[in-house]
């Protein structure tokens, strides 16, 4: 299965591969939670990642931008190449993190003003000009479908927004450093269905300009949005293929069929 997939990936023109993951293993202390997974992320695709809790989805994302290093006692092996460059060897890990936008499951409005929430990352990168920051803030809030609701109160605290607004603020912040890849980790668990649909529309637009990794517990969300999907279970990729295959009548693995129909386990 893995061999077949790797062969298929190698057949694609190399420029199309945005992130290449090979034999990625992750252990917390001595407990291995990701057991050697390999996949390619293509430029401008939406890649769906589905799987139950504890299957290693969030850990996988944290490996991609190397924030896993903030957790003591983790060991990562295997390789992750971003635009062909091994991220473990990059000189500028902060620059790497800015190329990947990360949206966490629970909305996190930083205890700063709405404006500063979005301007924080550009400032960290060294941008100072007021007009540059203004335009980034407006653009990102518009992209996250939040601008109209907050444009008159940008100096209010981001933490005082409603849950759904904070999640869109989180997305705006993830876009503020103009990432090439946007990773969303179960972005909809804390927000209502209407807001979820709005953000899904936003994602469809964003894929024109970036690559999106969509980790989700809502299998139907992956079905609606993803071009390709893989099913991660207990730290292994059970099946990886076009979304229609995963959700179709004949996925290659029985477990995939059961999981997406909610009769797993």
């Amino acid at each position, binding site marked *: 299965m893995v061999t077949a997939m790797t062969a298929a990936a190698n057949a694609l023109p190399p420029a199309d591969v945005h992130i290449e993951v090979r034999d990625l293993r992750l252990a917390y202390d001595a407990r291995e939670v990701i057991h050697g997974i390999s996949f390619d992320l293509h430029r401008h695709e939406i890649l769906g990642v589905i799987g139950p809790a504890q299957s290693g989805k969030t850990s996988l994302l944290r490996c991609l*931008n190397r*924030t896993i290093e*903030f957790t*003591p*006692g983790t060991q990562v092996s295997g390789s992750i190449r971003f635009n062909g460059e091994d991220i473990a060897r990059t000189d500028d890990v*902060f*620059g*790497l*993190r*800015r190329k990947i*936008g*990360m949206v*966490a499951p*629970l909305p*996190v*409005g*930083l*205890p*700063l003003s709405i404006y500063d929430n979005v301007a*924080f*990352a550009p400032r*960290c*990168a060294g941008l100072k000009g007021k007009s540059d920051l203004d335009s980034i803030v407006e653009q990102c809030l518009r992209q996250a479908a939040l601008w109209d609701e907050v444009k008159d109160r940008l100096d209010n*605290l981001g*933490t005082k927004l409603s849950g759904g607004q904070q999640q869109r603020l*989180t997305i705006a*912040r*993830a876009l*503020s*450093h103009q990432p090439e890849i946007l990773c969303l980790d179960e972005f909809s668990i804390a927000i209502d269905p209407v807001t979820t649909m709005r953000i899904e529309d936003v994602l469809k637009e964003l894929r024109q300009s970036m690559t999106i990794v969509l980790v989700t517990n809502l299998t139907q969300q992956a079905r609606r949005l993803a071009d390709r999907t893989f099913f991660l279970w207990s730290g292994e990729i059970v099946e990886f293929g076009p979304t229609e295959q995963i959700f179709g009548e004949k996925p290659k693995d029985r477990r995939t069929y059961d999981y997406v129909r909610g009769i797993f386990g």
Partner: protein
Amino acid sequence: MTAPASNFTETARGRRKRRQEVIAKWIFGSMAAAMIVPLLLIVGYLIVRAAPSLKLEFLLDIPRKGMTAGGIWPAFIGTIYLVFLSLAFSAPVGILAAVYLNEYAKDNWFNRLINLAVINLAGVPSIVHALFGLGAFVYAARFGYSIISASLTLAIMTLPVIIASTRESLASVPRSFREACWNVGATRWQTIRAVVLPNSISGILTGVILQVSRAAGETAPVMFTGAVFFKAVQRGDLLPYALTDQCMALSMHLYTLSTQVPGVQESIPYATAVVLLGSVLLVNTAAITLRAYLRSRKKW
């Protein structure tokens, strides 16, 4: 069987439970209220005994007639010197050390050693601190018996508590804020400056201010390292001491008046205690007010 008059008619068991509830509340409440009694007794007793001396003049005047009359100005100003100088040493060191331990330190043998040192330093009795200050600052560092030796000794004594309270304040900032910052490529320092410190500074400052009362009350450390029995000072002089001078201190003054000097006017030691206690309560009240004010502006 007749139907109950209401769904909520009290049963015998319910009545018993309710009575237990009332009794429990009264027991716990009376124990809590008992805390007030010693405080009122101490303060009340001191004020009554001190009453004849409690005038502004007592605070501003210098001791007269071989300490048996007059005021406490040199001791009062000396204590202020010692407290603020010691905090000027211990607050920056303690806060920076706590930031390191809480934000940067990985779990390895070196940092575990530091943690162990901090915890044990907090448990060292003040008389041992005094002896250490005498050896380290008075003799080894050749600062002599001086305000600077005494302040450094007090600083070492307050340091572990400042580190502990600062770490607690830092830890109260949710980790999710830090992760959100790291995710957008912020360094640890950018994260600390933008999010962690602004939201923990109230707790940090409160912790530091509360150490004022500890530093002001300690007798042994200053007695060994820089406080003296008597120092001639102008009445009401705000800058009577140089850093290398010895000074008087309220805690030591109270000790000497009560045990070493015969024929002291009876109200004077009590009035000294009232000034010491009053200053400490004043500072603590300021700390609590500051904390309440900053909490009311909590940002999440």
